[in-house]
């Protein structure tokens, strides 16, 4: 029989796993981003060309996802930094909940703005 080697995932573990995954995602994006921006040197045609290929609504929606990942990494990172500074170490779960609330709140706000710019919302923000 196979040996079960499981360990219950606590909130802190969950935060850590998400932080790592989002971090890995972001570093890939960063490298891509630098490459895209480098097209500025090639002049308007080159830049708009590359931007155009990312301009489909599909990519726009993915961009909203990207903002979500960035914001999670950002707020959880701030949580970790606060803990390292000794702030709310004993209340890390509360701190995580707070971080998640702020994350979802800001993400929602950004999404609304971006969607309205794309004209996907019936109203403008």
């Amino acid at each position, binding site marked *: 029989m196979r040996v079960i080697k499981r360990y219950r995932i606590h909130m802190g573990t969950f935060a850590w796993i998400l932080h790592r995954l989002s971090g890995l995602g972001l570093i890939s994006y960063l490298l891509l981003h630098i490459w895209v921006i480098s097209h500025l040197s090639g002049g*308007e045609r080159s830049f708009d060309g590359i931007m155009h290929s990312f301009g489909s609504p599909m990519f726009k929606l993915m961009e909203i996802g990207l903002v979500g990942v960035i914001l999670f990494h950002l707020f959880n990172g*701030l949580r970790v930094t606060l803990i390292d500074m000794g702030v709310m170490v004993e209340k890390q779960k509360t701190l995580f909940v707070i971080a998640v609330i702020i994350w979802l709140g800001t993400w929602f706000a950004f999404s609304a703005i971006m969607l309205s710019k794309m004209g996907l919302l019936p109203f403008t923000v």
Partner: protein
Amino acid sequence: MKYKETTRSGGALPWLFQRISGVYLAIVLFVHVVNLHILIDGEIGYAAIAERVATPLWKTINISFLIVALFHGLYGLWIVLEDYIHIGWLRVLIYGVIATIALVFAIFGTLTMITFQYGG
């Protein structure tokens, strides 16, 4: 009764810089995102971007952002990989690859920023 005689790699200062850079990135990124996605109306195109990239202030911010983000991201990547990879030669190889990526992209990105002239 000694633990392990290794050359101490420390890690204190990179650790600290990872925190500081994280906070710096949080601030700059916020400005960046607000700037690009809220203040710019309509399509993000060459003109809109180029206008922002051309000023010396934005150049400085962008270059520092580039380098700090590369450090933060790639050092983070290294920490993650270091956790799981314990084969000596593989570690050296990966470290080398990451360092090369960091160097290449830092130079590449910086050159883009410095050499760029709007309308030129």
